[in-house]
């Protein structure tokens, strides 16, 4: 199978897997300890978590702290609900983890529109009284890179906090230095599932959602998994050390992919975009049929979470596409472990299947 769905999840880096194994120990070794226990084994586990925390922090701006969570969904919930803010403005193309949580907190949440390139305006007008603004760094469906630094400035000028869902950008492009809170997920940057983080700028007051043992400075209770933290840390460290080669590789794949899918229309900006995301459409295409006819290729029609819902993508609709057009799009995602030969083979299969539909 050729895996081209890097926005849904990424393969676990072998290095991340290796980093986890010592912490998945039985009684023969110390690696199973509870990192919150004060005895020797517990202290060693706690030390490993702090190493991982530093590795994750290296992807993030200075002047804040990394709070480990079970993933980005929890991190975003913690940021939005825990901030206690009640008047929200979020982009219309946020992930459901932001949109649903924002609506939960503020039924009248303002949706910041995007243009036909899938970009929020850097001069977006914020509603009167907004006290929390959330815009994602890289969109998960179309890969567009939002002008988050400029929007963060506007949010601050209006007296609001700025939250950035950096799930798709973290480890690939620099985090917005002026955000107040940033959410990350390990499994989108070649780390394990079940862990993520919320970065919180120093001085920002949050209330926890999960109470208990008071771990993570009281912001997130629950025994931390040294294995998951170590895997996340190792994956983050790799993103740092391989940053340049990863970026070159993706650029090469992008150029090739654009040529292979030249007959298709690109959804979203070509330039303000993470080039590991190719979201394309073809008028009249039956995507469900295409997906079922290309069983050797793993790609998607939008986000994994929304798949199966039957609803047209809220992101593509926000670009101004009709429901009908939005239903003709596919998302091809690639990254560190994608070979150009795989891309070529997949393109041949997808183009042949699309061609057989006569579109």
């Amino acid at each position, binding site marked *: *199978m050729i895996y081209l769905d890097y926005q849904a999840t990424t393969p676990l880096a072998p290095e991340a897997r290796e980093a986890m194994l010592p912490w998945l120990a039985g009684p023969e070794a110390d690696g199973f300890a509870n990192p919150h226990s004060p005895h020797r084994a517990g202290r060693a586990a706690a030390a490993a978590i702090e190493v991982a925390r530093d590795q994750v922090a290296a992807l993030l701006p200075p002047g804040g702290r990394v709070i480990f969570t079970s993933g980005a969904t929890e991190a975003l919930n913690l940021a939005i609900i825990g901030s206690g803010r009640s008047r929200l403005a979020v982009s219309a193309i946020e992930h459901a983890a932001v949109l649903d949580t924002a609506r939960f907190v503020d039924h009248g949440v303002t949706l910041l529109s995007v243009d036909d390139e899938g970009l929020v305006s850097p001069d977006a007008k914020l509603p009167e009284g907004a006290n929390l603004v959330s815009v994602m760094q890289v969109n998960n469906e179309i890969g567009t890179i939002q002008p988050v630094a400029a929007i963060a400035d506007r949010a601050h000028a209006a007296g609001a906090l700025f939250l950035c869902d950096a799930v798709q950008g973290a480890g690939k492009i620099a985090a917005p230095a002026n955000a107040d809170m940033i959410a990350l997920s390990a499994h989108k940057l070649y780390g394990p599932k079940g862990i993520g983080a919320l970065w919180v700028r120093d001085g920002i007051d949050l209330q926890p*959602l999960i109470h*208990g043992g008071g771990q993570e400075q009281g912001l997130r209770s629950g025994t931390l998994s040294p294995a998951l933290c170590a895997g996340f840390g190792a994956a983050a460290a790799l993103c740092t050390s391989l940053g340049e080669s990863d970026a070159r590789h993706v650029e090469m794949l992008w150029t090739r992919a654009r040529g292979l899918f030249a007959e298709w229309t690109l959804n979203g900006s070509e330039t303000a975009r993470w080039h590991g995301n190719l979201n394309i459409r073809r008028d009249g295409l039956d995507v469900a049929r295409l997906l079922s006819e290309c069983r050797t290729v793993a790609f998607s029609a939008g986000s*994994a979470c929304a798949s199966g819902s039957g609803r047209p993508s809220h992101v593509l609709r926000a670009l101004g596409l009709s429901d009908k057009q939005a239903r003709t799009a596919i998302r091809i995602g690639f990254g560190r472990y994608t070979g150009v030969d795989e891309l070529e083979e997949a393109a041949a299969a997808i183009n042949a299947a699309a061609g057989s539909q006569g579109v």
Partner: protein
Amino acid sequence: MTFGPLYLDHAATTPLLPQAREAMLEGFRLWANPSSPHKAGRAARAALEDARARLKIALGWDGEVIFASGASEALALAIRYAKAGPLVVSAVEHDAVLRAAGPEAVRLAVSPDGLVDLETLSSGLAAIQQVNSETGVIQPIEAIAGQVRSHGGVLLVDAAQGVGKLSLPDADMIALSAHKFGGPIGIGALLVRDYALLDAPGGQERGYRGGTENLPGVLGMVAALEAGNGWMVDAARLRALLEAGVVASGGDVIAAGTPRISTIGGYRMPGKSANAQLIRFDGMGIAVSAGSACSSGSLKASHVLTAMGVDAPGEVIRVSIGRETSEVDIERFLAAWREIAGKVAA
């Protein structure tokens, strides 16, 4: 004579079982997103749903299973989204319940034997633990469930210390944590008799818990549960040995006459602070604790022991044994205990 480390802190966390580790390694190979509709995603989804079915069989549970990152999250989810009336909790619950409940929740007192006072139960959501993490005391959940239901209430049981060791309690919602029974840290579940008991915040797990599922964790958890609890027979024998030794050298057993799980015990060494004991035990390579792992390091007295009215709670340590604990381990612990208590020449 030199010794390796001796781990007697299984209530804090347990060693990962080899079969759980193997299952996780398989899970790492199934790394696709279980919500993706392609073949790789469907394979991950199939493994997840198979694990859910196996979990229900292993537990003997015919209700719903919502996977979460652990018991703290499962409890927070239950308390936040339960459609039941006012919250009632016991005074000896874990902080995950007490802090989620907040100061407005009714707190049920416990008697000196550690058992919840049933007289004061009323309607609404009652959160009562199955097994106390510091004393091992087992609450009479069947009787409590009867009381709660007779008032039209809903019973949430924190079974973090009981699952995988005792039978599943009779409750409407049950929280569990894999790493307390040989599974990995970072995964747990909320069992729900009926989804109708909860509001759905949206997302995965049928809308009851958003976030990409941690499949390796789920597989590890189920494999650990399937390893069974046959070893509890040994645990009972070892614990009797342990307590006879503690009492013989002047120690007190907390809630000695109350039904307690064989794996957890609280012991007072008169005249020696728990912190001083811990430093000595740690120096001898023995990992025990003073109360729960989360609260260790804080100097405040255990809320559990205080609620029970235990004398000198600051002199009580927790010893918790596990599947791999042996008689030699118990003898070694008792020798250390006697040395620290000054009952033998060092």
